[in-house]
Structure formats: C-alpha cells, structure tokens
C-alpha cells in the first residue's frame, strides 16, 4: 500500500454505480431482444394480414339470369337427372350477352364470357337442383367473377398499365367499368373460402377439404397417441424398475422427440403403405405418422406431470390401504391430468402444423372432394398453403396468406386451451 487508501465509502459508492450500470445494460439488452422478436412477429402478421384479408371478400357481378324452361328443362318433367345435365354456364353466358348486346364477334364474346368464373354455372346448377321451382323464373343473381376481374377490382392489377402488361384486355376493362357504373360489381363475403374444397380456379378454391383432412388426421393422432403415451408414461414412471433397460428406453424416447419429422414420413411410407398396404393420401396414414411423431412429446410431458405429483399423495393413499393401481388411477392421475392434457394439446398443435412427413405418404395432392372418412384421400391445412403458394395464378397469393391466418387461428385456439387448462387445474405444491 504505497498511497493512502481511499475511503471505503468512496470505493463502495463507485462499485454500486458500476453494478447498477451493469444491471441496467443487461435489462436493456433483454428488452432489446424482446423488441427485436416483437418486430419480426409484427412484420410477419402485418404482411400476412395485409396480403390475406382481401381473400375473405370476393368480387361478384350482378346479372339478370333467365332460367327459361326451354333451355334447362326441355321435357318439362323437372327430372333431377335432366336438370343436372343442362348447360348452366350457357345460361350465364346468355345473361352476359343480353347485358352487352353489341358484342358479337367470336373473340370478343370469349373475352366477355371470361369475366365470370367457370364455377358460376356449377353454383347455379346446385341452386336449381336444390330448388327446381326456380326453373322458368328470371333472377337477379350475384355471380362469382373470374379471378382476374377480382384482382383488378382489388387493385392487384393496374388499370393504367399498358394492355399487353395486364391479363385484362381494354375491352374487358370497358365492360367492367360499365358494370361498376351501374352498381353491378360488388365485393361480398367469400363463403366459398370456408365451405369448398381445393380448386384450380382461385375464386372457387376453399380450405374446407383441408380442414376436414386435418381434423381426421388429428382425431387418429389423438386417439392413438394419448392413451399409448399416457400408459407408457405411467408404466415407466410408476411401475418400471430403474435399470439399464429403462434408461435405454428413456434415452430413446428423448432422442425420438428431436428426430426431424420427414424421417417419420419415410417410416410411414415403408411401414403403413408398402407393408400394411394402407391407401396413399389417406388421413389415417397421416394420423399414424403424426402419432409416431407426437408420441415422444406426449410421453415426456405425461412423465413430467406424474413426477410433479408429490410422493406424500402416493404414501397417504398407500397408507390407508389403496392398492398401487388405485393409488395411481384415483389419486396420482387426476392430479397429473392437467399437465398431461397440456402436453398432448401442444403435441397436437405441432402435428397440425406439420407438412413434411405428409409429402412422403401422398397427402401433398390436389384433392377437390371433401373427405368423408379417414380413408378417403385428403390433404391438410399446411399442405394446402404449400400447394397454393406454388400456383401461378395471382389470386392464390392472397388465399395463401388467408389460409395461413386460418391455420394460425387454429393453433392459437389450441395453445390457448392448453394455457387455460394449466391455469385452471394446475396445483402447485
């Protein structure tokens, strides 16, 4: 000690200031990390909602459609077969012709007819089939516009652009402006997006078949992974002796939880389709594959839940004469159930968002018909997103975002349920 030491007080004061500064910096760094994360999330939602919200509305054109009996039901018997065969798209074309009587050349007519979706006729057909009384009447109908018209009305096609650079010709633009002028163009709620299956006409495409496919798949996954997972967890946690074998099993389960999901798809292809001969593209195979994928997650969560039940509960039950089985099913499991359910729901949410394993088992496919059982060909929500993102038609861009929003809504509901269950039933010891 060469110089006289400074006062202890000063040194402590200096140290405190430094420690406070460090703490402040650490807090700021943490806050910064949260902010960066939130910015990314905000950007993600901003682009998704910005791109996707317009898909919930669809452009319609009002036409005065004449369902003359001569065209639709020439025999006059209102026979369902005959009604089904009639040319409804032709009826709509006639309505367009009547609306624009000066269009006569073949090419112009082709362009005129292209304003309306090719699906409009099918919708009119199902309207008539469900209510044959409509035959012979003149209706003022809002028919679905073609996707290019929809994109123009929504501003995704620039009206001022040169004709060669847009998919709507000048004459089509003229007709649309005439229709707009008398209020015959309107954007209405796009119910087809929620009620129909996939389609190559964006205006007719919907997510319903994908939603049903995902539902069947999750049903199979839940029905298999929950009982098997819980039974495994109970056995390993409560009954199994602790030896090298159970250690090995435990390591394997933890390992499986981290295996990339595509590997389970390959396994599913080899086992369920090639050996068991289950059909391709079926939700039951998807469910089995996703079961393999979620099982480790369910087992780990269920074991953690069982482990968190204090030994005093078990000892008390055993002490009053309950058998081991009674102890577990009457006392331990009810207390562990919220944790098990939470783990299962989180596993399910992961399974819902999975698309890679489904590629191998043929569920990445164009499926129009809504599946009626887990054995019918089906696709899943994330796969639908993938397929639409790959489609050339521009109107699929907004539909892709909208489908992602729906998928996120499902995930949000599932995760919120998990949190709710935990908050409500979880007991801390």
């Amino acid at each position, binding site marked *: 000690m060469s110089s006289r030491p400074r006062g202890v007080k000063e040194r402590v004061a200096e140290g405190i200031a430094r420690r406070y500064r460090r703490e402040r910096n650490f807090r700021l760094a943490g806050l910064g990390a949260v902010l960066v994360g939130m910015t990314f999330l905000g950007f993600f939602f901003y682009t998704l909602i910005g791109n996707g919200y317009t898909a919930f509305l669809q452009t319609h054109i009002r036409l005065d459609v004449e369902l003359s009996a001569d065209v639709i039901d020439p025999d006059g018997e209102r026979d369902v077969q005959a009604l089904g065969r009639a040319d409804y798209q032709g009826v709509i074309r006639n309505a367009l012709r009547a609306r624009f009587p000066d269009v006569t050349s073949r090419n112009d007519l082709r362009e005129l007819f*292209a304003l309306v979706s090719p699906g409009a006729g*099918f919708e009119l057909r199902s309207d008539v089939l469900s209510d044959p009384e409509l035959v012979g009447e003149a209706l003022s109908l809002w028919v679905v516009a073609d996707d290019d018209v929809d994109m123009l009305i929504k501003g995704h096609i620039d009206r001022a652009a040169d004709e060669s650079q847009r998919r709507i010709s000048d004459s089509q633009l003229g007709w649309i402006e005439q229709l707009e002028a008398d209020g015959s163009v309107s954007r209405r709620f796009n119910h087809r997006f929620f009620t129909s299956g996939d389609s190559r006409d964006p205006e007719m495409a919907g997510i319903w078949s994908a939603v049903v496919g995902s539902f069947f798949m999750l049903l199979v996954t839940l029905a298999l992974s929950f*009982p098997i997972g819980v039974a495994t967890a109970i056995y390993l946690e409560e009954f199994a002796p602790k030896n090298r074998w159970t250690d090995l099993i435990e390591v394997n389960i933890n390992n499986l939880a981290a295996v990339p999901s595509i590997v389970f798809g390959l396994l599913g292809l080899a086992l369920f389709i090639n050996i068991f*001969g289950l059909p391709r593209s079926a939700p039951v195979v998807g469910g089995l594959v996703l079961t393999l994928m979620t099982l480790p997650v369910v087992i780990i969560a269920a074991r953690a839940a069982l482990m968190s039940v204090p030994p005093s509960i078990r000892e008390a039950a055993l002490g009053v004469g309950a058998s081991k089985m009674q102890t577990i099913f009457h006392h331990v499991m009810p207390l562990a159930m919220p944790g098990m359910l939470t783990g299962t729901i989180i596993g399910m949410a992961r399974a819902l968002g999975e698309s890679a394993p489904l590629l191998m088992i043929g569920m990445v496919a*164009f499926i129009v018909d809504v599946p009626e059982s*887990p054995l019918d060909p089906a696709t899943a929500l994330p796969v639908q997103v993938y*397929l639409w993102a790959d*489609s*050339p*038609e521009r109107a699929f861009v907004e539909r892709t975002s909208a489908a992602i929003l729906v998928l996120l809504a499902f995930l949000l509901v599932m995760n919120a349920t998990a949190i709710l269950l935990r908050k409500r039933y979880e007991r801390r010891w």
Partner: protein
Amino acid sequence: MGRYSASFVSCVSAFGAAFLVQTAHAQAARDYISIVGSSTVYPFSTVVAERFGRTTDFSTPTIESTGSGGGFKLFCSGVGVQYPDITNSSRRVRQSEIDECADNGVRDIVEVKIGYDGIVLANFNGAPMYRLTREQIYLALAKTVPDSAGSGLIPNPYVSWSDIDAGLPNVRIEVLGPPPTSGTRDAFVELVMLAGCEAFPVIETLAGDERDAACFTMREDGAFIEAGENDNLIVQKLEANPTALGIFGFSFLDQNQDKVQGSLIGGISPEFDSIADGSYPVSRPLYSYVKKLHVGEIPGIEEFLAELTSEAAWGDFGYLSDRGLIPLPQAERQAVLQAVQGLENVSLSP
C-alpha cells in the same frame, strides 16, 4: 375427477382400437383415379381433373406433385389399387423406366402428349429487355467455357453481360434458376446449354463425358443461383432485384406480365404463338402416361382421357390454353387422339 379421467382414457383407447380395426379393411377397391408426376404438368392436369369431377358422376381424381422421375417410380411399382393409374411427365419416358415398369408387371403403357410448355428467361419489366442467343446464355452460365482462341476450356471469366458481347448491357450476370431436381432445369440445360455449347468447335473435339461436363455444368460462383422449385418466388425476387434474370415456365410469365418480361432468345420473344409454331427455341412437350391394365378396373379412366383429349380442354381455344399450356398442332392432336382411343402402347422407336 379420478373416475372421469380413467374412463376418458379407456374411452379414447377404445376409439383408437376401433380405428385400427377399421384400417385393417383398408385394402378395398378404389373409386377415384390416382395421378402422380411432374410439377410442371400439375397445374394443367388438376384443371382437367376438376372439370372431370364436376361434370361427371365420377369422383375427382387425386393428383400428387412428385416430379417426373418420382412419378415414374411410383407408377412403375406395380399393378393394383395401391399404385397410381396415371403419371405426368415433363419429358418423354425413358427406356429404363419402361423396362422397370415391365419388371413389375406394368407391361402396357399408353402415352398422351398433351401440349407444349415454354421455358422463359425473364427480368423485371422496368429494366431494359434482354436480347440473347443460346451461345451467349451458355457463355454466361456454364462453369467452364471455351477460351477466346478456341483452343481449350477455361473457368468462366465473364462477370457482366457486356463482357460476353459489347451489345449487351453492362450489368453483372445474375440468373435465378430451378435446382437440379426440377424438370424445368433438365429441359433448360438440354435446350439452351447443350444447344449453346455445341455451337463452339472446341466442344466437338472433346470426348463424350468431358463434353457433357462442359455443356451441362452450371457455374457455382454466384452468377447462377438455385432459387428453389417455387416459380412464384423467382418472380418476386426479380421484382426486388431489377438486374437479375430468372428461369421459369411460360405460365408464370403469362400470369405476371405486369411484373416481368421474357427475354428474346435467338431474336424470338416467348409468346403463345411463337411457342406454338415452334419458332421460340426453348419449349418442351408434356406427357401423361396411363396404365392400360387399370383401364376398366378403376372407374373413369377412359372418360378422363376423353376429357383430357377433348377440344374444349387441349384445343386451340381450350381451357388448358387459358392456363398457359401451348396446344399441339391440329394434325398432331388427331394422331394422339387416335392412339389414345385405341389405347396403343408407347413405343420409343422413332
């Protein structure tokens, strides 16, 4: 809650068991057509399938996008309901694939040539349009190119387009293209790179393998960027990067005319008519292959083929042409139609 949870578990497991029993019966007949194959044909095949499902009493066929090679692999695995009925391909079937099919009992295959697809080299349409030749594209994208003296091969020295030809813009070479797994890449290499490299006399002197390597190997120094299978993504990247060019199918150019423009190749612009009459050099035929043994077993195959080969679908003004498929010439359509109606076997002999 104790009894509840126990009964819940047993209820759920009974459900699971019921499912397993049900799936044991899965190997029943299939009442829908199963189609696999090329992602290039997918957008066209799906439109036909959807029409077919809507206008007939048959179920809508399911279509998987597996790539041409993957499609043949599934298609040739065997005969029976668990194997696909039709595979789409953006190239012709190979003899090796026909042999593999035959080994697994798939002896009779009907070939349907459905139309042409153009491959375009496009850039952002706010930038000047490129006028290229196949030799120039080859020089810009090959890993090794003939040196200026024409005596041997050197690693690709060209940095900007103007290095290749003074008439081209002084812009860094940057081309976004599909990965090697893609049929579009195969066709591009064959129709552009091979044709371009054969124009150089020094290539003629090389042995087969060396020649293939010289013609087919794309450069890996960042001038050619593999941008993934998603053509929409390439279009978006071109919009963000006005100096880059992208390689994709004609239907994506057709849908995005307000964002990108196709480069002239050999003086010809990629347009519907120029691809249809064959003057635009980079186009390829698209095919569907049908398993003859499944006709009559799986309901609707013949009717589906009739829809596919109807004038309303593949004709000059058919709905497939609205999607960017270039129709076959009238006479060729007639010939294919006859072969399809007679369910004639594919033969690779010229």
